[in-house]
């Protein structure tokens, strides 16, 4: 039980009278990839938004590395070690690729804005460190040649990778990927799957991901949580999920 990175208990979210998520339970362990799947509007992104503090839950707790982070503010949660990507890519379009990644380094700087004006001491050291780690991540993602380009000039697939690089720059323990391979072709999807698995080991991570591409989910995930209309309906390994009757019913409808 000690290697549990995040635990969600009885998470319930309502928007006005609409229940978006009801009683979600799940657990993510270290070096594990957990998939969150379900039909459109099932509440998957709401779950991510709640974990990252963008949406406040009605009920339930989120425990991250033994700490109850329910109701914390988004930047605080990010600094604690949960990084994410967005369903509809949200880069800082007008900043360069390398700057996009360097932004995440702001969480780790030790100098004050007054030291930035003078430029001595910690400023130079921190800036060099942020730049080097950003360049390392871009190298890893195969984006280093585009480091000086504006983020919005990148092709779609590269923008997705840049979002992952930016998230990794936070040095997280848990990475949330919201539909990371949406819009990618089968070859790109396979490569991305390999990348995700590699990241898991290299960065000592746990990953939770939302995805509609079932082939991808079944390939890379260790555990899968299925939700439908806000209700959790199944939890298990890809094999178990594939044969779960409630899941089949949710996706294909009952006879």
């Amino acid at each position, binding site marked *: 039980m000690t290697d549990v990175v995040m635990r969600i208990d009885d998470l319930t979210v309502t928007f006005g009278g609409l229940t978006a998520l009801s009683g979600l339970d799940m657990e993510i362990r270290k070096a594990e990839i957990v998939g969150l799947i379900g039909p459109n509007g099932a509440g998957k992104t709401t779950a991510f938004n709640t974990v*990252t503090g963008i949406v406040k839950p009605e009920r339930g707790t989120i425990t991250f590395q033994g700490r109850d982070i329910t109701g914390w503010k988004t930047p605080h949660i*990010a600094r604690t070690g949960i990084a994410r990507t967005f369903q509809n890519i*949200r880069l800082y379009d*007008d900043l360069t690729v390398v*700057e996009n990644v*360097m*932004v995440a380094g702001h969480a780790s700087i030790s*100098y004050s804005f007054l030291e930035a004006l003078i430029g001595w001491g910690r400023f130079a050291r921190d800036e060099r460190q942020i*730049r080097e780690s950003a360049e390392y991540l871009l190298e890893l993602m195969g984006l280093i040649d585009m480091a000086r380009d504006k983020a919005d000039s990148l092709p779609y697939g590269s923008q997705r990778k840049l979002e992952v690089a930016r998230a990794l720059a936070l040095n997280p323990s848990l990475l949330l990927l919201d539909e990371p391979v949406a819009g990618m072709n089968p070859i790109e999807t396979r490569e991305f799957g390999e990348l995700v698995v590699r990241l898991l080991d290299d960065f000592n991570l746990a990953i939770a991901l939302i995805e509609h591409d079932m082939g991808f989910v079944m390939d890379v995930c260790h555990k899968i949580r299925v939700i439908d209309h806000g209700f959790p309906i199944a939890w298990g390994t890809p094999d178990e999920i594939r044969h779960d009757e409630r899941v089949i019913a949710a996706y294909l409808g009952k006879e």
Partner: protein
Amino acid sequence: METTIPSTKAHVTRDRLLAAVAVGVFLVFLWYADNHFSAYSIRILNNIAIFIILAASYNLINGVTGQFSLEPNAFVAVGAYTSAILTLSPQEKLASFIIEPMVWPLSVISVSFPVSLLAAGLVTAVMALLMAVPVFRVRGDYLAIVTLGFGEVIQVVANNIVSVTNGPLGLKGLTPHTNLWWSWGICIVTIFCIVRLVNSSYGRAMKAVREDETAAQAMGIDAFRIKTLAFTFSAFFEGVAGGLLAHLITTISPTLFTFLLTFHLLIIIVVGGLGSTTGAVIAAAVFTFGSEFLRVVEEPFSLYGFDYAGIPGMRMVILSMMLVVVMLFARRGIMGRSEFSWQWLFETAARVRRRIRSD
């Protein structure tokens, strides 16, 4: 012309050297201007420096951080009054406060010009901080409304707290401390500070908040703190500029700090390119010089037998038309979001040289 973080150590050293040389050359120019230019030209140069300070700091909150605000006239007023109240001698205060005598501690305080400028900056920054805390707790364009309202409130306050501001009579007979050295010295320091801040992690965080606040928060950036920092930082320099302005025109009254000043600066930073400090500097210089130059259209003249009567207020019409033209044909202004860099200058020079050689 990208907003590059310098690529190599050699480049950094070269750029610093060139910047120092450029500042040196400029100081020589100032020395020459100080000794040979007419009082009118020197006045324009002082105005340019003050407007560059205002535009560059206004751009920090509006352009770099992307928080639409309308505060400069209010903050300039606060800075101008603070520094003027502090530099006037007790005798002068006694003489000019004829409606109501000045309240006690202020009536005897008299400090040197630089100290009063620093105080002007700090008082303005505190005002900004007090405004930022409620405004930035919520999302949305509340800042524009609050700052617009604050500008009006300041005028009412200046008119009515007679024992501090001398009410509608204003403060007269300030010593004309502001000269080319003070105005341009502070201008250079301001640009230096703003450029350093924008090129630090704090500046990247500000841009990230501008580009996508949710994504910035998700990367651990506390948008509230970053916006507050940008707003307070620009308020400080706007307050200092107010102090400079007060000691340039030597008479200040509540009617001096109307919304027109903010509107003027808004045109400047939009034409310069929202988000570009270089653009703000260029546009401030061009506009301040241009609006002096355009005085001819308000005065009668005759050209080839055609008599022109001169229309008062015509300058503002022309400046507004320029804004419309920029909005229609060059939305991103003169500089877009790019900044000047020596590297860009060298590359452009090399390109031009190649072009000439190949012809």
